[in-house]
C-alpha cells in the first residue's frame, strides 16, 4: 500500500476519532469544554490538512510503500504471544507465566530448532532472567507483581 493511500486511511480514522471526541465533549460543563474542544478542532484541522496534502501535493510525501518487507509472521507472533501472556499472568501469576513466556517467545523468534540442548538453554535463560527479576523486584525493591493462582 502506498503512503498516499495510508494517509487517506489515517486522516479518515483521525477525523472519525475527532467526531466521537467532539460529541462526548458537548456534554462537558462550561468553561471546562474549551480546552478539549480546541485540541479536538486543531486535531481535525491537521487531519484534514494531511488529507488535502495527500490528494493535491503527493510530491511532498515520502515515497515508497511503508509496509513493504514487513515480516508479519514474526510481528504478529510477538503481539499475539504478548496478549496471551497478559491474560495468562492475570490468572496464573507473573513469575511462572513469564518463565514460560521467555522460553516460548525466544524459541519462536529464534531458528526454531528442536532438541534437548535448545530447550535446556532456553530453560536456563528463563531461570536466570526470572531469578534476577525476582531478586531485584521482589526481594530488593519490594515491587508488587501481578498476582495469580500460582506464583
Amino acid at each position: 500500500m502506498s503512503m498516499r493511500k495510508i494517509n487517506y486511511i489515517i486522516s479518515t480514522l483521525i477525523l472519525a476519532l475527532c467526531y466521537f471526541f467532539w460529541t462526548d465533549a458537548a456534554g462537558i460543563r462550561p468553561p471546562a469544554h474549551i480546552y478539549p474542544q480546541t485540541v479536538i478542532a486543531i486535531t481535525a484541522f491537521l487531519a484534514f490538512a494531511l488529507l488535502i496534502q495527500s490528494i493535491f501535493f503527493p510530491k511532498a510525501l515520502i515515497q515508497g510503500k511503508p509496509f513493504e518487507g514487513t515480516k508479519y509472521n514474526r510481528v504478529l507472533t510477538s503481539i499475539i504471544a504478548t496478549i496471551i501472556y497478559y491474560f495468562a499472568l492475570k490468572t496464573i501469576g507473573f513469575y511462572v507465566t513469564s518463565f514460560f513466556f521467555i522460553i516460548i517467545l525466544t524459541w519462536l523468534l529464534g531458528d526454531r530448532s528442536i532438541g534437548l540442548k535448545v530447550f535446556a538453554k532456553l530453560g536456563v535463560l528463563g531461570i536466570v532472567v526470572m531469578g534476577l527479576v525476582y531478586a531485584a523486584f521482589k526481594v530488593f525493591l519490594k515491587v508488587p507483581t501481578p498476582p495469580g493462582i500460582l506464583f
Partner: protein
Amino acid sequence: MLADFLIGFQNALHPMNILIMSLALAGGIAIGTLPGLSATMGVALLVPLTFGMDPATGLLMLGAMYTGAIYGGANSAILINTPGTPSAVCTTFDGYPLTKQGRADEALFTALVSSVIGGVIGTIFLLVATQPLALVSLKFGSPEYFWMAIFGLTIISSLSEGNMIKGLLGGVLGLLLATIGIDPVTGHSRFIFDYRPLIGGITLIPAMIGFFSFAQVLTLVDENQKYLAEYSPNKGVIGKVFGHMLKFSKKNLLRSSLIGTFVGILPGAGGNVASFVAYNEAKRWSKNPETFGKGEIEGVVASESSNNATVSSSLIPLLSLGIPGSPVAAVLLGGLLIHGLQPGAKLFIQTGDIAYTFIIGLIVVNLLMLFVGFLGMRLFAQVLNVPSHYIATIVIVLSVIGSYAIRNNLFDIVIMIVCGIIGFITLKVGFEPGPIVLGLILGTLAEEGFSLSLLMAKASGSMFDTFVARPISAFLIFMCIMAIVSPIYVRVKKSRKNKLENA
C-alpha cells in the same frame, strides 16, 4: 554560615558517606535503567533505610539514589531505544542512532559526562542562589505554566522529520490522549466512552514504555537482525569524548544545564520538560541542525545535562520555602521531617551543618557518578552482544512489570501493549513517537494552566491581562514566537544562500 559550610564539606567527604553514596548511586543507576521504575520509587524505597542513620548521611543516600536514577535512564535510551525514565526520552533521538552506527560507548560516556556537568551546575545554583530562584519560581502562576507548556510544544517542529503535518498531528494526538479521564476543573469523567478503566486516564509511564519500548521490540522483531548493533569497545573513547566536549560542547552544556536548572525549580515541570526544551534550543543554535535525530552527539549532551541539572534545582523550592515541587521532592520532604528537620529558612539557620552537608554532598555524588557510571557503562554495553530475539523477549517482560509497578494496575499493561502496537504502526507510516509522548507529557500542564487561567480571567474580567500582560507570560510568548519563526528564517536564509551559490 562559613562554619556550617566547612562542616558540610568535611561530612560530605567522610569515607563512610562516600561508600553509602556510591552504593545508592549504583542502585539508582540500575533503577533508572529499568523502564517503569522511577526515581520517586527508588527514593521512597530507601527512606525507611535512613531511619537509623545520621540525618545528613540519610539525606546523602536519598540524593545519590535520585541523581543515579535520573542519569540511569540514558543507558537503556541509548542501547535499546527505550528511555528508562521520562527524562531520557530526548536521549533516544540521537543516542540510539549512535548505537546503530557502532558508537554506543561514545554516546554512553557523553551521557555520563553531560549528566555529571549538568548535575554539578544545578547544585552550584542550589548552593548560591536558592533564595532568589525560589522567589522567581513563586511568580509562576497558571498563565505562565500554560505558556511554558506551549513553549515546550514548539519543539514539535524540530522533532518532525519528513512531514511537518504528521509531526504536529502526533503532538496534538498526544494532547488529546492526555485529556482522557477526569476533567481537572469540574472533576467529571470525559472521553471514557463508558469504559470504566479509562477513568484514571492514559498514564504517562505505561504509554511511554509502549510507544518506545514495546514498539521498539516489534521493530527489532521485524528487522530480524542477529544483534541490535555492531559493538566493540573503543579504547580511546574517554579522550575522544572529553576532546569533543571541550572543543564543541561548552556553550551547549552551559545553556542546557541552565535551562535544566531553571525548569527544575518550577513546581510540576521536571527533567522531561527540561530535556525537551534544551534539546530544541541545542538544535536551534546548532550550525548543523539537520544532523539532530540522526546520531548527533550534541543532542545527547543537551538532553542529559539538562535533566540532571533539574535534580538539584528541583530541591530549591523544598529547601528554601518548604514547597515540594516534584514527586521526588515530596518524598524527600518526608525524609527531612522523619529526621526532625524543618524545611524552609529554619533548615539553614537551625540545622545549617546538615543542609550544607546535603548540598555539598550532591556535588560529591555527581563527581562519584563519573566513576560508578563508567563501571556500569561497560557492563550495560554488553547488552549489544546478546542476540536480539533474547533482548526482545526480556524487554517485553520488563515492560510488563514496569507498566504494572507504577499503580499496581493491570490496565496499565493494556495501555502499554496498545500504545506499543500503535507506536509500531505509526513509526511505519511516518509518525515519530517523540511528538506523541511530548503531547502526553505537556498535555496535563497545558490544560491545568489554561483552565485555571481562564477562571482567573473570568474573575479579573480581562483575558489580555491574565494571558498576555504578565511579564513572565509576555517573555514566554516572545520565546514561543522565536522558537517558531527562527527555524523558518534559517531555512529561508539557507535556501537563498544555496540558490546564490548555484547561480
